[in-house]
C-alpha cells in the first residue's frame, strides 16, 4: 500500500502555516482542481460579477437556461442541490418546488428568485453564470 501513502499530505501545504487563533480560509490556489472532478474547469468566484448585477435589474427571467447550464457544466445533480439549498427562501416568495425543479421553456420568475439561485450557486460551487447564459435567461 505504500505507493498511495504520500499524495494526500502534499495537498495541504497551507496547513503548516495556518494560525489557530486567526482562522482564515485557504486560498483557491492551493486546491488541486484535478482532485475535484465534479467542479474542475469552472470559472469560480466568490463575488457576483457585473453581468449578473445588470440582469438582476430586470423584472423577470427564465430559469430553464440556467438549469440546463448548471446540469451540463457543473454536474448532473447540481440543479437538484441548488433547488434544495434555495427551497426555503424560494417557497417564501411563492414559487413551488415543481416550478423550480422543472421550469418550462417560456416560464418566467421574478428576478428576486434568480438572486437566490445565484447565491446558492456561489455558496455551493463558488461559481458565477457566464454572460451568455444570463442573456439567455433574460430573453423572455
Amino acid at each position, binding site marked *: 500500500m505504500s505507493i*498511495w501513502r504520500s499524495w*494526500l499530505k502534499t495537498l495541504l501545504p497551507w496547513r503548516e502555516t*495556518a494560525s*489557530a487563533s486567526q482562522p482564515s480560509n485557504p486560498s483557491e490556489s492551493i486546491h*488541486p482542481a484535478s*482532485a475535484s*472532478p465534479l467542479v474542475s474547469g469552472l470559472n469560480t468566484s466568490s463575488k457576483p460579477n457585473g453581468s449578473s448585477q445588470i440582469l438582476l435589474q430586470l423584472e423577470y427571467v427564465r430559469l430553464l437556461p440556467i438549469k440546463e447550464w448548471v446540469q451540463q457544466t457543473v454536474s448532473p445533480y447540481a440543479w437538484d442541490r441548488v433547488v434544495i439549498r434555495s427551497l*426555503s*427562501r424560494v417557497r417564501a416568495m411563492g414559487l413551488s418546488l*415543481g416550478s423550480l425543479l422543472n421550469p418550462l421553456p417560456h416560464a418566467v420568475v421574478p428576478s428576486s428568485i434568480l438572486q437566490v439561485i445565484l447565491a446558492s450557486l456561489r455558496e455551493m460551487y463558488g461559481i458565477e453564470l457566464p454572460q451568455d447564459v444570463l442573456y439567455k435567461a433574460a430573453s423572455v
Partner: protein
Amino acid sequence: MRVEVDTLFQVRAARGSVVLGGEPHVVHCHYYNHFLQTSIEDAEDLYPVEEVLVGTAQEIGHSLFRRLFAELDVRDVGRRKALVESIYSTCGFGKVDLGGVNSEGGTLATPYEHYAYTYVATFPPRPPHKRGVAYFSQGYLAGALEAIYDLPLGSMGSRQVACLTKGDSEVRWEFFRLNHPLPLSPSVGEGRYEEAELYQPSFTRVPMRQIRDAVLRLPLGPDSETGLIEAFGVVLTRLPGNYYSLISERHLRRMVEAVGPEVADVVLDMLIESGHVCAFNTLGGVMQSAEWDAIVRPHLDGPESWIYGISAVLPALGWGIVQISVPPTPASWRLSLKNWYESTAIGALSHPALDHSPFARGLFSGIMALVYVARLHEQQVMFDGALYRNLFQNGRRYEGTFVESRLAGGTADVMEVKTK
C-alpha cells in the same frame, strides 16, 4: 496501551459483512462521504440537519462502544479511551487523543479528521458562515464518551468549534453534559440481517469467493501519522454502515415533514446519485488499482467478467452479497442482493420512509456505466468531470430499479439495471 483493533473485526462471510462492536462496518471513499453529507447539509434551512448527522453518529458510537467494552470486559477508563482512539484511527477517521475529556466533557482537537482533511484537500472553499464538516466524528465521539463513562445515551452534548475548512489548523469539538438528554435511540446493530453463500455462477471462470477472500486480506490500514486510509486513489473510511443508512432514511423523512411528499423524488434522486458517485470514485478507483491488477484481473477477460469481479469485491467491503444468476449484457443486468447493508439497517425500523435502497440503484447503474460506457476493461480512463457527465448526465445511460424489495414487504432484494 496499544490495541490491535484489526483482530476485533469479525468477518461474517455468510452475511457479506464485517462487524465490530455489533456494528456492521462498510468501506467508502471520501467523495461518497462528502456527497451524501453535503446533500443532507444543503437542507439546513429546512430542518436542523445536525440532529440527523450528529445525532445518528452519537447513537452508533454509544451502542458500538457500550457493546465492545462489555464483550472485551474493558472497565478501566484509560483502557476504554485507548480502545476508542485505536478504533478511530483504524477505521480511517483520523487521530484523536481523549486525554482532555472526562465524564463532564471537555475539548478534543486534532489536525487529522477524515471529513475535514479530505474536504480542504479536494473541494473548493466553504463559505465562512458555514460550520465545520466534522459532523460524524462529533457525534461518534460524544457517543463514545458516554460509553466510556457509563452515561446514558444522549446525555453528552457537543459542538464543533474549529475546522480545517474554516482555515483553522485543527478540528476542535467541545463536549458537555446536558441536563435534559437528547432524544436518541440505540443503534439497530446488525438489523434485519439475512445469510447466504456467495453464489458462483457456472457461466464464468471468475472465482467469486477467492476474490472476496483476497480483498478481505488487503491491508487497508491507516497512515500512522494521520490515521487516514489512502488507497485506490481515494481516502477510505470503515464507517458503521448504519450511519449511512439511517441518515439517508432520516433525511428523507425530515424533508417530507418539512416540505411535503412532493420533495421525496428529489431527495431519492440525490441518494441514487450518491450511488453513482460511489461507483465512479470508489469502485472506479478499485478497478484501476494495482491491487485489482494483482488479485482480480488475472481472472478477467470480457466486460461481463469485470462485473463479476467487482461484485465479488463488495462483500469484502462489508456491503452485503451480490448474487448473479443470469449473465449481464450491455442492455441489462438482473441481480439479487443478500444482506445489503442499507436494506438490513432500515428493515429493522418500523414504518421506514424508504421502501428500497436508493444507493444500490445508483451503484449498480454506475458499475454498468463504468464497464459498458467507459469500457474500463479496455483502457485506463481519467476519472474527471467530463467522464462523470458522460456516464451520469441527464438521461443517464443506465437506470436501476427494484423488482422486489425487502423494505417494501418482499422476501428478497432483486434489482434490474437497464439502459434508458
